Every structure is written in structure tokens, then in C-alpha cells.
């Protein structure tokens, strides 16, 4: 059985847009939102994506819409949290 998708990733035209979106989303207080390298099983023209909690999908997309920060696609993602305190240790494809 496929693991539940606890995150979504938002795809952008370029890193500039992804990081701008991260800035907006973090400033708005959405937890665990951050730019991560594009997971291998997701097709994107850009090397990074913005990952946010699945439950925040609607709020985040509304915020980006409001700020005119356009995205290209939204994809579900299951990612295991290894250590909340240290994002660098997050598994990219935690099954």
C-alpha cells in the first residue's frame, strides 16, 4: 500500500520563484515549509521545489495567488521526518 502523502510539493519556473514563495510562506507562519531539491520521481524543469504540509495546501496556494507568485504544478509527496530540528537530515524519499 502506498504511504499517505503528508506533504505537497509546489513546482515553479525557476529557483528564484521557489525561494520567493518559500519566503512568503514561511513569513505567513506555515510550519515545515521549505525549499528542497526536486525529488527524482517528480518531473520539473527546476532543481528545487517548495514543500509544505498537505494540510496547508489550500492556505498556501491562496497566499501565493494573492501575492502573484505563480506556480506550475502541485504534486503530493510522502516524506518521512527524520529530525524536525535539523532540516538537512530530512529524507528526500522516505518510504
Amino acid at each position, binding site marked *: 500500500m502506498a504511504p499517505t502523502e503528508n506533504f505537497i510539493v509546489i513546482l515553479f*519556473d*525557476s*529557483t*528564484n*520563484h*521557489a*525561494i*520567493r514563495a*518559500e*519566503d512568503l510562506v514561511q513569513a505567513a507562519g506555515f510550519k515545515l515549509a521549505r*525549499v*528542497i*531539491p*526536486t525529488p527524482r520521481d517528480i518531473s520539473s*524543469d*527546476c*532543481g*528545487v521545489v517548495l514543500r509544505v504540509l498537505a494540510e496547508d495546501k489550500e492556505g498556501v496556494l491562496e497566499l501565493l495567488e494573492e*501575492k*502573484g*507568485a505563480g506556480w506550475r504544478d502541485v504534486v503530493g509527496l510522502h516524506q518521512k521526518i527524520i529530525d524536525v530540528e535539523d*532540516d*538537512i537530515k530530512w529524507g528526500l524519499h522516505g518510504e
Partner: protein
Amino acid sequence: MAYFDNAATSWPKPPCVKEAIADFIDNIGANPGRSGHSQSIEAGRVVNRARVAVADIFNVADPMRVAFSHNATHSLNTVLRGLLGNDGEAITSSMEHNSVIRPLRDLEPGIKIHIIECDELGRMAPDALNELISPQTKVVVINHASNVNGSIAPIRELASIARDNGVPFVLDAAQTAGSVPIDMKRDLIDIACFTGHKSLLGPMGIGGMVLGEDFDEKTLPRLLAGGTGSRSELETHPDFLPDKYESGTLNAMGLAGLAAGLGYIQERTIEDIREKEASLTKRFLDGASNISGLVLHSSSDQLHQTSVVSFNITGIQQSTIGQLLDEQHGIMSRVGLHCAPMAHKALGTFPGGTVRFSFGCFNKAEQVDRALEALEQIASSNKK
């Protein structure tokens, strides 16, 4: 010792600028927007901070409308060559720096250049634009403030005429961004070109352009094509902002410094910086007007004057004054034509030029007083 050459580049920089650049080199170092690892993402965050801060200071909501380059000249070339191509007409003023007039001259004879003539203090009547603008006009490009004598152009009036005629209004903000408030929306500016190392207090080698929200970037082709880190599968350059105008690796450590400089300005406020520089300028102009033999080429009208002032001392060459100021008084000035021969023609100071003092937000009133004493001494020694 006094550094009065802030119009060439500001010095000193706030300490946070050096710290930010060192931090980038020591702890971040990676290429922004190219790789997915955390150091590259962190470099991207540095670039974004600079982009957001520039957008804020120009009052543009979307930071993607800020495209970085090497300096104001680089962006002015992108804009002027892009908007004009090989034909049409451009309108500019006689107070322009070579960063505007040389790219325009490069495009002759395909294009035609009209010049708004300024008076002996660099002032222009906005109505003159009405006389020159026509259906053939492709761009109006104006120096926000003269790097020779500090006169501030009536940009809102000029931009309003350009807007009414459907012509893009381009601002050369090299001398003003960071020390004179600029509001792209209020002032109806379509494109503003800026440099990072003057009043924005960043390092040399970083600048850019800001596209106003009403300007359609589809009407402005890019100057360069190359790697952007985006759409790597395509052999053609992407057309979305800011990547469209940013080819090749950015000066990310320069942007780290620029973001820090902008942070300093935001905290201190442009209004405070403008007030400080205006009070130094007034102090100098008041004192200098009492020195016999000293001829001022800048206006005492504070509303239309930056902290850049030009003068001559009758009977002494500019280069001699500059050398005496430097060697005997430790005062750094700039003498000559300041890359703006056309402006000196307007002021009546061509080809000899002027001595220029440009005060910065870190100069002190005592330094101005010492410079006035030095000039008094130089002027009176000439009479003996």
C-alpha cells in the same frame, strides 16, 4: 581626512556589508539557482533577500520584476538597445551621463536622438518634452539626478507626459537610489536602472533594473542569452522574469553585500539619509558662497538638489585644486568632466570641467568645515 567622492562610489560602507560578504564566502559560497543542495538553496535565499529589498525600496510589489546585472550601465544598455533596436527616436536630457548617451550614440544613425536642453544649473522645463515627443518616440530616458552638479530632474512631470503618449519612461537612478525616495508607481516609471555601490551602500559589480508593474516585459528583448539554471532542457532562453534578463552566474556575494546595505538603509530610513546629506550640502553651499573667487555650479534649492556639488576657483586649474585638496588636506574630490561632457556643456564648464564634492551619509559637518577652510586657503593663495 575626508572622502567626498560618494557619487563615484560610496565609502565607507556600513560594517554589516563587509560581514555579509564575508559570511557568504565563508559559510554559503555556492552558486544560487543552479543546484539543489542546501548551500545552493541558501545562496538563492541571499539573492532573494536582495531582490525583495530592491523591490521594496522602489515600491514594486513583485520582486521578480527586479533583474540583476553588473551595474546601471549594463542595465541601461539592455533597456536602450532592447527598446530601440535599429530605428525610432529617443528623447533624453543634456544632463545625461555617458552610460545613457553612449549607448544611444551607438545606435545612430538608425535612431534619432532628441535632447531636452537644461539651463546653467542643470534644470529643465518638463514642457520641453511635449515639443519633442512624437509617434516615432520609442523611449524617454532621464538621469534622475546629475552626477556632475546634483540637480534633480522633474521626473514625475516628465513621466506623466511620456505615459500620456504611450512611451516607456526609463529612469537612470544611479545617483539617487538609496538617497532620494523613488516610487515606481507614484512617479509613473516604467523601468529604473540602478547600481548597487553608490547610495545603496553595497559593493561594486552589482546593479540591475526594476520593471514597473504597468510595463509589459514582452516589449523589451533581452541583451544576453545563456545559463539560468531554469528550463535546462531547452536550448532557447526562458522568457519569464527575472531569468529572461539574468544570464550566467550572478554576483551572489555582491548581492549579499547589497542586501546588507539595503537593510541598513531600511533601518535608518531614506528620509534620514536625505536629511543628513542635505544638511551637509547646505552647510557647504552656504560656506562656499562666501569664498571669494569660488564659483558654484549647483543650486541651493534643496528640493531639487542631491549631495553632489560642483565648483571652480577662478584662475586655478581643476586638477591643481584636486591635488592640493588631496595632498595638503586629505580631501578626496573628483575633478574634470565626470563622464558627462554633455552636462558640462549645459553648465558652461566644458572642456575644463569642475571640482566635485559628493557627500555621503557618513560624512560629518566638521569635515565640510575643514574643506571650506582648505578652499578658502587655496583661493586666497592664488590672489597673492
